[in-house]
C-alpha cells in the first residue's frame, strides 16, 4: 500500500514537474502561433533571426540574473553595469588597445562591478535589493561622469569589434552565436557542475549550506560577478551594434531580465530554477515585443499587453 501510494505520488510528481518545465515552452509556442496567424511575416526566417538577435541582449543579462535569483538574491544594477562597462571598453578601444583584448577587459570590468555587488552583499551584509539599487545609481552616475553624458562614438575597434555585434557566421547573426555559447556554458555550470549545486543550495537554505561546508560568501560573490560579466557581454554586443557606447544604455533592463527569469519558472524565493526556462522567458518577451511591433500595436498598448502576459505566464506556472 505504501509503495503503491509512493509510486502514484512519484508519477504525479513527475507529471507536474513536466508541466512545470513545459509550461513556459507551451506559452511560447502558442504566442508564436498567434502572432504568425495575425502576420505571417513573423515566421519568416529573416524575422526569426532578427528576433533572436534582438533577444540576445536581454537573454544574456537574464542568464546571469538566473544564478543571482537562484541564490535568493536580485541584481538591479545590471543595466548600469552594462552602460559603465561599455563606456569603459569604448574608452579602452579608443586609446588603441586591440579589440579582442578590449573585449576581454570589458568582460572583466563587468565581472569586477558584479563582484563589488557580491562583496557588499556578503561582507557588508546589505540586502541584495538595496545593495544593487545603490550600485545601480552609482554605476550609472560613474558612466555619466566618465562620458560626460555623451555617447562615445567613432572609437574604432576595426572589423573584430564590429563583427562582435554585427557579424554573421553561416548566415547566423554573431550575437546569436555568442548567446548560444553563453547559454551552453552557463547551463553546464548550473546543472552539471558542483558550482551550480552550491548555488542552488545557498538559495534553498543558506545557513544549512554554510554548515555543510559550502563557502557561501565566495559562491555568492562569484554569482554576482557572473551577472556583471553577462551584463558587460550584452553591453558589448549593444555597443558594437550601435557603433556607440551610450551613457543611458541599459536603463530599466533589470526589469525585463527579471521578468524573463520569473516567466521561465525560477522562483524569486531562491533555491529553484532552470536556465532553459530563462531562455524561453526571454524568447517570450522578445516575441511579444517583436510581434506587437509587427502587428502595429501602439507602444502604449504594448505595455499593457506585456504586463498582462507576465501575469498570465506566472499564473500558468503556479497552476502547474
Amino acid at each position: 500500500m505504501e509503495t503503491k501510494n509512493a509510486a502514484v505520488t512519484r508519477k504525479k510528481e513527475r507529471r507536474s514537474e513536466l508541466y512545470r518545465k513545459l509550461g513556459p515552452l507551451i506559452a511560447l509556442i502558442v504566442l508564436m502561433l498567434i502572432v504568425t496567424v495575425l502576420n505571417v511575416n513573423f515566421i519568416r526566417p529573416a524575422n526569426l533571426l532578427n528576433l533572436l538577435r534582438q533577444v540576445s541582449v536581454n537573454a544574456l543579462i537574464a542568464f546571469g540574473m538566473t544564478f543571482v535569483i537562484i541564490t535568493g538574491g536580485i541584481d538591479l544594477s545590471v543595466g548600469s553595469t552594462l552602460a559603465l562597462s561599455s563606456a569603459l571598453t569604448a574608452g579602452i578601444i579608443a586609446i588603441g588597445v586591440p579589440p579582442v583584448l578590449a573585449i576581454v577587459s570589458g568582460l572583466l570590468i563587468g565581472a569586477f562591478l558584479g563582484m563589488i555587488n557580491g562583496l557588499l552583499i556578503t561582507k557588508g551584509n546589505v540586502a541584495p535589493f538595496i545593495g544593487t539599487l545603490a550600485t545601480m545609481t552609482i554605476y550609472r552616475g560613474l558612466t555619466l561622469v566618465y562620458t560626460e553624458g555623451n555617447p562615445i562614438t567613432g572609437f574604432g575597434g576595426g572589423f573584430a569589434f564590429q563583427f562582435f555585434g554585427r557579424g554573421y557566421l553561416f548566415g547566423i547573426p554573431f550575437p546569436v552565436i555568442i548567446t548560444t555559447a553563453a547559454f551552453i556554458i552557463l547551463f553546464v555550470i548550473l546543472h552539471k557542475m558542483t558550482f551550480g549545486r552550491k548555488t542552488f543550495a545557498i538559495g534553498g537554505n543558506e545557513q544549512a549550506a554554510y554548515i555543510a561546508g559550502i563557502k557561501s560568501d565566495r559562491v555568492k560573490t562569484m554569482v554576482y560577478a557572473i551577472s556583471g560579466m553577462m551584463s558587460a557581454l550584452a553591453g558589448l554586443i549593444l555597443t558594437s551594434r550601435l557603433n556607440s557606447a551610450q551613457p543611458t544604455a541599459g536603463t530599466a533592463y533589470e526589469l525585463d531580465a527579471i521578468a524573463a527569469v520569473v516567466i521561465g519558472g525560477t522562483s524569486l524565493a531562491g533555491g529553484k530554477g532552470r536556465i532553459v526556462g530563462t531562455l524561453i522567458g526571454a524568447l517570450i518577451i522578445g516575441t511579444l515585443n517583436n510581434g506587437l511591433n509587427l502587428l502595429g500595436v501602439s507602444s502604449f498598448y504594448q505595455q499593457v499587453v506585456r504586463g498582462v502576459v507576465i501575469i498570465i505566464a506566472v499564473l500558468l506556472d503556479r497552476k502547474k
Partner: protein
Amino acid sequence: ATLEGDQSGDDGEVEELAAEDITIGLSISTLNNPFFGDLQRGVVEAAEENGSTVRSVDAQDDTATQINGIDDLIQQGVDILLINPVDSDAITPAIESANSAGIPVITIDRSSEGGDVLTFIASDNVEGGEMAAEFIIDLVGEDADVVQLEGVPGASATNERGEGFMNVANDRLNVVESQSANFNRSEGLTVMENIIQSYSDIEAVFAQNDEMALGALEALEAAGMTDVIVVGFDGNDDALAEIEAGRLDATIAQQPYEMGTIAVDTVYDYFSGGTIDEEIGAPLELISAE
C-alpha cells in the same frame, strides 16, 4: 491661506547689474542627451567669459524633479533663470513661483504655456519637420513609402516636428508607419528592425532626432537596405560624422551651443536695460552630403 505664486514680485524697473555680479540659474531637462550638453556648455562658457556665475540643475527628464530643482535655484537667490522645460505645460507653476520671487525667466528649446517669460529661444521645430519632408521628396519623389520615428510622446519637439513633417507629407508622401523610439538610439534600432519586417519597400526614414536616426541606420544596414534615405534632426557630432562618411543622408541641424550663448547675451541685454524680443529664433540648417 495663500497660493504659491500669489504674491506678485517687484514689478518695478530692472535693476542694472554688471556681468560679474550676475548669478544665472540654469535648469536643463536632461543631460543624458548630448544636445542639451551642448546647450549647457554654451551657457556656461559664455557666462564664464564675462565673469558671471552659473548654477545648474538637471531634471533628468522628470517634471517634478525640474520644479524641485528650480525651487532650489530660487532659494539660492539667482538673479535670472534659464529654463529648458521637460514639459511645456508642467513648467508653468515653476515659472509662476519665479515670477512671484521677482526672478526673470527665459525658456530655451521648449516653451512654457503659462507664467511671465522674458523670451523664448528655440529653433522652429515645425519648420524643421517641413524641411525634412521636402528634402525627402527631392530625393525619392512624391508618394514614396516613408517611415517616421517619433520622439518622447508629449514633448513639444515631438509634436511640432511631427506636425511640420506631416504638413508636407500628408499629401505628398505615403507614411506607412510612425512609431515612437523615445529620442533614444537603441530603441531606434529595435523599432526600425521590426518595421523592416513588415515593410521592405520603404524608401526613406525621418527620425525626429539624430540618436534615433543613427539607430535606424544600423538596422537598415544590417538588413542590407543601404539605399534607404535617412534624415535626422539636431546635427550632433555623431550624425555629422555619419553624413561625412556617406551613411546618413541629412540632418536638420539645430545649434544648441548657440542657443546657450544667445540666452546669455540676452541676459546681459536685459540687465543693461535693453529691450528683449518676445521670441528669439535659433538658426536651423539642413546639412546633407553635398
